[in-house]
């Protein structure tokens, strides 16, 4: 009898423990909970972490994350407005803003991803399709000329990627609240050309480089020619200047010499002529000379006389 009572007591204690235990639930940080009674939600979602009460056995608790979660779309092949095909990889951060609605409309995170696929992909596709490629590449605060040189020939930016991301976020955010989802941001993670386009782009880049290379070589040739020309110019300049100066010096000297000669020789021009003539005989007559001299000449006249 005593032992049966003991059994009974133990059973009651156990039941009590289980009941009390089931009357509480612990909500960890970073999570939120919806209390449901036979599947139907009761009251507002619980968002503060800690110990909470619920009716034992009758009520269930569904826990949802409060954290920021990642949605990563499939890379999409989308043509831009200027007919360039690009792969766009869009990613988004989202969180469950209304756990109750989320429970009713979505139920779990995997389904949420699918819903976001539909919502974000379509708005991203629309927006990319309506804009030029540069809008996706450059930021809204892109300033021409700062880090890019061909400012005036380049297309102007009307939106830029941040504004486009904002627009996708806004469009998509209109659809998400009914699922209890809040989008934190949407971003273009990757934008790349599709393979066919990138081959063309590479070809263009190669031709650009070749152009630059040719320009450099040609510039070098030009520089070389210029310097060689300069060499000639300076050479002529230096030489002619020197010749000019030398001639001048010589001329002055000649003039002075002439003056000296004239001053002296004019004292007896006839004698000068005589003397100079004799001197020039000395220098001009030589081995190549055949001299025919009259026997009347001053030099031979005595020979005749002796005959």
């Amino acid at each position, binding site marked *: 009898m005593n*032992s049966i009572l003991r059994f009974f007591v133990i059973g009651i204690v156990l039941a009590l423990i289980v009941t009390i235990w*089931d009357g509480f*639930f*612990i*909500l960890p*940080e*970073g999570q939120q909970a919806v209390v449901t009674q036979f599947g139907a939600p009761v009251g507002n979602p619980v968002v503060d972490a*800690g110990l909470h009460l619920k009716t034992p056995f009758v009520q269930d608790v*569904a826990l949802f994350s*409060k954290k920021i979660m990642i949605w990563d779309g499939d*890379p999409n092949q989308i043509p831009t407005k200027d007919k360039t095909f690009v792969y766009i990889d869009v990613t988004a951060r989202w969180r469950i803003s209304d756990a109750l609605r989320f429970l009713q409309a979505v139920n779990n995170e995997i389904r949420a991803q699918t819903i976001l696929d539909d919502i974000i992909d379509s708005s991203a596709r629309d927006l990319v399709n309506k804009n030029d490629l540069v809008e996706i*590449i*450059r930021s809204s605060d*892109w300033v021409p000329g700062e*880090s*890019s*040189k061909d400012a005036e020939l380049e297309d102007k930016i009307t939106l830029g*990627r*941040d504004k486009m991301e904002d627009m996708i976020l806004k469009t998509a955010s209109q659809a998400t609240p009914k699922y209890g989802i809040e989008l*934190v941001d949407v971003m273009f993670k*990757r*934008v*790349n050309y599709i393979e066919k386009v*990138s081959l063309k*782009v*590479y070809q263009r*880049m190669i031709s650009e*480089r070749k152009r*630059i290379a040719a320009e*450099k*070589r040609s510039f*070098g040739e030009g*520089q*070389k*020619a210029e*310097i060689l020309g300069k060499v000639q110019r*300076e050479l002529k300049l*230096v030489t002619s200047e*020197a010749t000019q*100066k030398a001639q001048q*010096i010589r001329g002055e*000297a000649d003039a*002075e*010499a002439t003056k000296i*000669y004239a001053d*002296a020789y004019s*004292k007896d021009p006839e*004698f*000068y002529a005589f*003397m100079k003539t004799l001197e020039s005989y*000395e220098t001009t007559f*030589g*081995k190549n*000379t*055949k*001299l*025919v001299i*009259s*026997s009347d000449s001053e*030099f031979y006249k005595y020979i005749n006389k002796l005959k």
Partner: protein
Amino acid sequence: MTNQDQPPQWGKKKGPASPEEFIAAFLKKLKESFEGGGSKFGGGNGNPSGGDGVPPGLGGALSKILIVVVALVVVNALSASFYTIEPGERGVVMRLGKFQKITQSGLNFKVPLLDTLYKVDVETVRKEEFGFRTRVPGQKTVYDKRGYQTESLMLTGDKNVIDVAWIVQYKVRDPLKFLIKVADPRQAVRDVSEKAIRQVVGNQDFDYALQNREVIETRTTLDLQKTLDIYESGIKIVTVKLQDVNPPEAVKPAFNEVNEADQDMKRLVNEAEETYNKVIPKAKGSAKQTIEEAYGYAIERTNLAKGEVARFLNILKEYSGAKEVTRRRMYLETMEKILPEVDSIYMLDESQKSILPFFDISKSGKQGMPVK
């Protein structure tokens, strides 16, 4: 994530055994004591254990076992109440799921069963690689670059493609936020990094991006930190470092050609300057030579003139005294000097009206007959 089970999930618990386990253990012990008691006391007369007749000694045995169990639980709880936080770690303590406190490194106490502890490393710098992966870390690290093109290829502001590999280093600044704010902090860092660097590079022309690594690094760090702060991720970006910034593989040869052309250009200019240096200084020297020679000529010329004039004047002075004699003397002296030098001399008699008729003077002196 759904969890309809009761009791609620306790997450990644590192503390003592959870209540369920505790109860399960307790029940098991209880059951064992019953079975054990049954077999011990009822086994002799062949009755099946449990059920109807409970042996008299069961109460005492049960209480003994209970004491042991309680003692075990107490010891277990006590040992689980103290924990060590390593240097560079922080302990985040949740009491019944709610954030309680952050504990520093050293020995710490927590309430058993109620408190849950999460250890977060806040000192280690975590690293994310983009566009490559370290395959074998070590002194000579081996990198793997293939297959990560989707990460590393990005578009520049002038619609070109550039290949950028980079790393992001970060650490945990706020362990609590790190735990509870973002579902997958690592993936968040990766995604935002890729977005931030593409945005920065997209604002730059290809050539600029190729040469301004620091600018890209600084701006990416700022953008990345800003976005992670918006998420309240509790992450601090330590650094963003670019590894390789290259043209895409297919375009590289063309880039090398530009470098070659650049070298060619410099070479051509150098060659021309070499010619300049060879010619011009020499020409300048020659020019000076010409001028110096001219000066030399000038001095010589005047000096000669002066000398000649002096001689002439002296001769003239003497000549004036005996004109006729001097003239004759000078004439004869000159003839003396000249005549031995000349090739041949023909003397012509004045009485003969013409030159000797049979004498061909056009012939050379050796054939001709000298007239003497």
